[in-house]
């Protein structure tokens, strides 16, 4: 084998290795050996690639793992203990909480009874708790009205989370209307979709 040929083979091998690496990374589940074989027809080459990947990732923060007959990337165990990994359940915020949050965001500082007034239903205890726990809302100044009720406002964490620099970057009612978010008007007797205002 001459040098050129050797270089070409090496390039091809590297390329195949990259494909296997990327494929396993992007897959939503551990990938079986037979699936990988479909990508790299040569079993010898595949075995070699898998061995190399395992070695290259062995001292990294992420390891290349063989689990039964499947392959996946997993956080190295020495790190995972330290970082406390959990499969996190991502769940939607309840409707009540979302509505309450949006009212606090737009009307802050706002008292509990004002929130109830706007939503037209009473605020259950847990709703504000969820928002407090998330760190998205915080108590504001007390009102100087009878009873000195506490007000609520959004936190810096809230701004951070939604990528806003300040609260007045929230689109106003007019902006909402213009972007079609407020479909206030019901249109009747219309035989075709309306495209324009």
């Amino acid at each position: 084998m001459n040098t050129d040929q050797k270089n070409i083979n090496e390039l091809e091998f590297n390329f195949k290795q990259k494909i296997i690496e990327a494929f396993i990374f992007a897959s939503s589940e551990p990938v079986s050996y037979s699936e990988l074989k479909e990508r790299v027809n040569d079993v010898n080459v595949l075995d070699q690639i898998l061995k190399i990947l395992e070695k290259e990732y062995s001292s990294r923060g992420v390891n290349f793992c063989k689990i039964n007959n499947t392959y996946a990337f997993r956080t190295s165990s020495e790190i995972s203990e330290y970082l406390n990994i959990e499969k996190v359940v991502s769940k939607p915020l309840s409707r009540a909480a979302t509505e309450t949050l949006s009212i606090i965001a737009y009307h802050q500082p706002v008292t509990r009874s004002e929130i109830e007034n706007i939503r037209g239903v009473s605020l259950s205890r847990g709703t504000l708790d969820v928002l407090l726990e998330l760190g998205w809302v915080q108590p504001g100044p007390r009102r100087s009205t009878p009873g000195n009720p506490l007000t609520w406002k959004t936190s810096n964490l809230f701004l951070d989370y939604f990528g806003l620099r300040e609260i007045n970057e929230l689109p106003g009612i007019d902006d909402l209307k213009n972007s079609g978010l407020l479909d206030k008007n019901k249109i009747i007797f219309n035989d075709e979709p309306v495209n324009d205002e």
Partner: protein
Amino acid sequence: MENIQNQQVNILSLSLDGFEGPIDLLLSLARDHKIDLTKLSILKLAEQYLEFLDNIINKDIDIAAEYLVMGAWLAFLKSKLLLPIENDENLENIENLSELLEFQMKRLEGVQHVSKLLFNRHQLGTHFFKNGNPEVFNVSNKFQYNLTLYDLIKTYGSIVTKNEGETITIANTKLFSVENALIRLKQILKDTNDWKNLLDFIPKNIKNELENKSALASHFVASLELAKEGDVNIRQDSFKDEILLSSKNINN
């Protein structure tokens, strides 16, 4: 040359909907006639735009106002360009306006160009990928909420909407009125010397089916009205045959 231009105007006129506004139309006129934007003749372009508009108006009177506004503006500019220039100030004004128009066209062309470049790029989830099987590090809580700014805004929007009460708007239905049909029939019959199928009187450029049906109904009612007034003859030789109309003053 004249021929080719007319042809193109016709092709364009079939698809006014395809243009995203008057500047877009101007830009594509400039492109179709291979006008170099840097050596743009505003006069020539204004003429083409107006010619195009004339053509459209004949076929479809219902043209977006913005096309007409731009048309009026270009007509004004054209007249200024054609008139002898009286003083320097005037000249400067015209040059300024032409320059701005040119700028707008170049800018839109720029936007359209980079739009293509942008969407020619590799895209996440199509050409390159994120970790398909993510693990999540969690410091304190087991739940992660995924609320987007869009959700938040939309939620607030619906609260506001609910509280403001509902308004019902009756949509602008595009029905063809009997009045319009009457005017149309009279107009066309004036120049007709023969029996003519009722269907031929209906405007051809109606795309909406409901509107098309209403046009047929209105034209039929209008023809009866005209017959009652004695302005028109109606003939149908047998059931399911064509309904023919002719103006009263020809007898055959």
